[in-house]
């Protein structure tokens, strides 16, 4: 039971983090369209790291 709640909390946190990453990347791209490629690369890397954490939580909660 508690592990499910913990996993849920971690996924909520990861969701907030992903939203932040996506939103900020959008802002950055809107401000500097010429840096789109670099921003996207960095964005995907951070998103991947965060996603690894979220999936780890899912497997703990299973």
């Amino acid at each position: 039971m508690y592990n499910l709640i913990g996993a849920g909390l971690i996924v909520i946190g990861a969701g907030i983090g992903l939203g932040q990453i996506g939103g900020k990347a959008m802002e950055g791209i809107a401000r500097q369209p010429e840096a789109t490629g670099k921003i996207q690369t960095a964005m995907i890397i951070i998103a991947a790291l965060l996603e690894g954490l979220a999936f780890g939580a899912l497997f703990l909660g299973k």
Partner: protein
Amino acid sequence: MKVATQTFKFYSLVLMLFVSAFAMAENTTDPVQNSGGQVDTKDKVDAYILHHIQDSHDFSLFSYTSDEGERKHFGFPLPIILWTSNGLRTFMSSEFHHNDDGHVVVEKNGLKFAKIHSKIYELDGAAASVAFDETHHATNAHKVLDLSITKSVVGVLIIGLLMLFWFTGLARQYKKRQVPTGFGRVLEPLVLYVRDEISRPNIGEKHYRKFTGYLLTVFFFIWFLNLAGLTPLGFNVTGQVAVTACLAIFTLIIYTVSGNKDYWMHMLWMPGVPVLIRPVLAIIELAGAFIIKPFSLLVRLFANISAGHIVVMSLIAIMFTLKESLGVVGATGLSLVLSFFITLIEVLVAFLQAYIFTMLSALFIGMAVAEHDHDHAHDEQGHEVSDAEDVRGDFI
């Protein structure tokens, strides 16, 4: 023309292999398998999905219960190779008759084997079936070293052979003309993409050539296996921890072996920070390099692909679980629409995970071979290190 004939021959061979699979329909009259009938309860769906996620000893394409109550299996058996306490034993998986709960016991040269949840046990002495104690350890049997050609191994072999065939063919074409033909035209832009967008910017102009081969191999290996997992053949190779762990260990070995003086110095005795903090940093850096980085690589790929398979199969299972409340047409329509679109997303995920694994491998290798030195970062030549590379190197 010669290449075209060869290609034709090769594809007909592959086609024949799969067609022959349908000739190997097999009936089981095991009472345990017969009692169930259709898969229409939540428990059975759960069991079916978990069974799919695991590796299996036979290549089962589909199975159904006929009107006479017989369980019919379509697929082909695979060789089981066991290293037991008494030497090597080999037999075909068909001898287990698709039994996965230890009821069928196979006897080979005086040794008895039973298969429970895709794990093969060797029975001790006169035992007739495997018995478990409370902690789920077998009391009268033990596990053997299982070197079988399982379904995942078949997947790896097929994709490996296809890659060998496609990429050697692509490489050979450049000897005759500048532009590749056929399937090579699909592969060439991807090869260039991995080289120019992943390998070169992350590893650096000086060293990238040496590592591009590994990165290309790992990229296409993961991508093709992910795509094979979306076909009805039902591979789940990149969703096996053993496979992703092996790939992560390759990356670990490569960046550990090719790490230069600066890399080890920054790991073990970080310059530019107070001496008292240096041992603490060394512990963190060592844990990062040898545990966290490979672990994050392996968990990400494994979890993404497994979760993707679970989601697709759960959505397909909607047509069984919601049959009562939505009606047959409603449940089937809902599951069709949902699983169609989630499968499209999975096609994207298949590429993205291959990209991310390759990207992070390139990044880790790049950090190990980077030649910038923070003590001399602002020397009189201006020291050419691009911003993106520097920033990326810092937060991982």
